[in-house]
């Protein structure tokens, strides 16, 4: 019996390959399996090489999977481009209306579009393919039919006809698979679950976490791969006093956030690298004027326009210091969709608590990933609301060496929120002693953000693995396998990458070597750690795709050898 089934749907953008993988994952999740999706596509509406991958497992899933059990190829290019990742004994299902495969065995050509048209259900070609794949992997077809029934029971007149058509399509695929005689090692039965599970995408989770923390306002500008947060908020953030708006640029977004934060509201935007660059000066204003706000940066690849739809972890340095001058922004980088919920809530709460800007640093592979998680308990999220001025210090909003009462416009304590260096009431001054005192005040405020948690295992090892953000999954999988193979390596992980949890930092400083897998060229997090006295070494990769566990594992072994 196999624990995993990894299926990749490859073709052109617009052919439903991403939708196919998500449908397959939804169906399997409904059947009780753990699932995780990954997709990659070009930055265009239709056309260009695209693929979506679903990993289905009887165990909790950490990564999309290194190798494919089934490749569903819509055209010759998709076959040629992806077949190298098919594991030995894997099966290719291909669109035989488009091309033929004659150079290998274990292939099944299906004219799925034609079959769907002939069955009078032209939209069902993906379901025919899913039926074939599921049959070959020994997945319980009854559970899939139950999924179809549930999915299309929407209380509309045509529901039953669609359900019948789709079940017929599923069976058509299964029949073809059976005729071919091709089978995979049967997938283990799904586990049973005591807790309520949901299938959620990373961006949905981040949005809901922020709303759970009491977000009032969301203003953003469309940009891949962060637009999904804006559209989700537009559709779902409602209620008295809330506001969602589309700005005319990221420069306008960050200005609007400063205005909204100043007005007393809890406010957030979503953007990607190019937008974060444009927000640099405005984020500096929020830091100087002490305005709470949250910027979610969904990382893509490269500088300038770079790789708009790919995944990378190359914005960390920019997130920590997005603009000129002395500042260090708090950065929370969740490692998976489940953490995204709590990370977003914490980002809102941190911004309120220290009265300044916070970066929620996610990435394309997390934002777009669909994964089954235990339903988060929103009632556990505390809504931290900034300390509001009652006028006790008159107009002296910037009095003292730590967070002070925030005067809400309309109430007492009118002052000037000033991006120029200023005195206690916000009037501009360039006196050296004031610049010294105010600079120190702004950094001292960070000390209230001391509740970041972290994971630590095998802490006695002198070499440790410390992945961050979206490399957590591959890092964890590699670490688990190495540990099982008897390798002595420690595990540390936190989503609070700035400021780092103090106890974790103290422990890391004692280590001989800290290995940091990250998706960038510079080894950005490793550099940040070295700056703080940790002997960190990056394991980098910059393909625009996530780490493969096998690659990471072998590189860790090499580094361990070298460190001896």
């Amino acid at each position, binding site marked *: 019996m196999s624990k995993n089934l990894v299926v990749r749907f490859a073709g052109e953008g617009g052919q439903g390959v991403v939708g196919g993988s998500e449908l397959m994952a939804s169906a399997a999740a409904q059947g009780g399996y753990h699932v995780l999706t990954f997709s990659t596509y070009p930055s265009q509406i239709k056309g260009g090489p695209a693929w979506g991958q679903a990993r289905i497992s009887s165990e909790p899933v950490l990564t999309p999977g290194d190798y494919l059990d089934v490749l569903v190829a819509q055209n010759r290019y998709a076959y040629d481009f992806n077949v190298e990742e098919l594991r030995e004994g894997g099966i290719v299902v291909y669109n035989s209306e488009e091309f033929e495969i004659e150079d290998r065995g274990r292939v099944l050509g299906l004219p799925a579009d034609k079959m769907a048209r002939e069955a009078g259900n032209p939209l069902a070609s993906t379901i025919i393919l899913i039926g074939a794949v599921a049959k070959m992997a020994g997945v319980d077809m009854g559970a899939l039919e139950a999924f179809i029934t549930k999915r299309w029971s929407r209380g509309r007149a045509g529901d039953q006809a669609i359900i019948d058509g789709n079940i017929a399509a599923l069976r058509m695929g299964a029949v073809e698979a059976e005729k071919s005689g091709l089978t995979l090692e049967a997938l283990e039965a799904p586990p049973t679950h005591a807790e309520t599970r949901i299938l959620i995408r990373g961006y949905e989770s981040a949005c809901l976490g922020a709303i759970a923390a009491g977000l009032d306002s969301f203003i953003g500008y469309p940009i891949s791969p962060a637009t999904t947060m804006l559209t989700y908020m537009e559709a779902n953030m*409602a209620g008295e006093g809330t506001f969602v708006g589309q700005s005319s640029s990221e420069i306008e977004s960050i*200005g609007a956030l400063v205005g909204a934060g100043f007005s007393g509201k809890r406010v957030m935007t979503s953007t990607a690298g190019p937008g974060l660059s444009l927000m640099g000066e405005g984020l500096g204003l929020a830091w100087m004027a002490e305005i709470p706000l949250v910027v979610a940066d969904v990382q893509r690849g490269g500088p300038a326009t770079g790789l708009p739809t790919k995944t990378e972890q190359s914005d960390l340095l920019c997130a920590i210091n997005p603009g000129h001058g002395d500042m260090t922004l708090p950065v929370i980088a969740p490692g998976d969709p489940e953490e995204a919920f709590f990370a977003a809530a914490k980002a809102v709460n941190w911004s309120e608590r220290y009265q300044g800007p916070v970066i929620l640093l996610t990435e394309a592979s997390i934002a777009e990933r669909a994964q089954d998680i235990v*339903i988060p308990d929103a009632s556990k999220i505390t809504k931290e609301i900034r300390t509001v001025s009652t006028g006790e210090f008159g107009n002296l909003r910037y009095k003292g060496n730590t967070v002070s009462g925030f005067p809400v416009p309309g109430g007492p304590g009118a002052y000037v929120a000033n991006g120029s260096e200023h005195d206690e009431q916000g009037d*501009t001054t360039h006196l050296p002693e004031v610049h010294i005192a105010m600079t120190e005040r702004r950094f001292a405020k960070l000390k209230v953000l001391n509740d970041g948690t972290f994971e630590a295992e095998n802490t006695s090892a002198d070499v440790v693995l410390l992945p961050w953000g979206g490399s957590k999954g591959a890092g964890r999988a590699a670490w688990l396998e190495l540990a099982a193979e008897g390798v002595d390596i420690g595990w540390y992980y936190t989503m609070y990458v700035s400021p780092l949890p103090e106890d974790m930092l103290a422990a890391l400083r004692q280590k001989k070597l800290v290995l940091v897998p990250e998706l960038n060229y510079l080894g950005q997090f490793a550099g940040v750690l070295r700056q703080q006295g940790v002997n960190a070494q990056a394991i980098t990769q910059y393909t625009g795709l996530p780490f493969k566990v096998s690659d990471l594992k072998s590189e860790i072994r090499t580094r361990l050898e070298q460190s001896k």
Partner: protein
Amino acid sequence: MSKRNPVYDFKWCPGCGDFGVKVAIEQALGKRAVERNESIENTAIVAGIGCSGNLVHLQEGPQPFGIHGIHGRTLPIAYGLKSNRPDMNVVVVSGDGDFLSIGAEHIGPQARRNLDITVVVMDNGIYGLTKGQASPTTEFEVVTSTTRYGKLDDRMRPLEVYLGLGVGYIVSEMSSRVKQLGEAIKEAMEYPGFSIVHVQSPCTTYNDTYALLKGDEKNGIEPLAKPIPDSHDPSDFMAAMTIAKGKSVPIGLLYKREGESIPAHERLARAKERTQPREYTVDQLLASMTI
């Protein structure tokens, strides 16, 4: 400069037009507060960078809230502030450099949103704070420190720009007419929508245009500033454009869009009524994803 804060660094030059604008804004806010019986803390002044921006600090006694932000971004800040707090009276103070050069991209979006905010632009035709560089409203062929052989770019004509971008309420004034300016700003604050009061506010150090604006009848020099005739119908867009395109600086209410002005927050309220947006709690939204 400021009585309440003697160590405050900033100083305007003697005779700066911005003094008149400051007094006019204070008068407008004072009258509004009395008429509406609302506290002055219910106003927020959003300032940019330049000599104009320093106006935000100069209110004596009870004062409005203020933001002294970054160069060119007054309107984005006002957008976030007003969208989230429609109860606040939001006034933007800016200059020709801040508003019409680095900040010009923001005028169009705000005009289309019709945010209920009032902008007071202090136009001195020069970058004063950085000591005399050409601004968008510096005249063609004028010599400044960045236009040694005379300015090569044409002068921007702000009133035409505002009309073209769809600003619904436009006043052109002069800083020396403090009383009339105060009235004009107060009226503009009453207008339910996006309004701009464009003020000629001369820079006595780098671009002293007082004499030009006022003229010199003795020596037969016609004043550049001329009152808009009473016969002008402010709701007539083409007539307003003709005046804006004229040689002189018009003084008075140039344009007031015909018909009811629906400010941004009311548009949103109407849209919500029309569509009845989904109002789900986080728990309900999470539960909707149950496997």
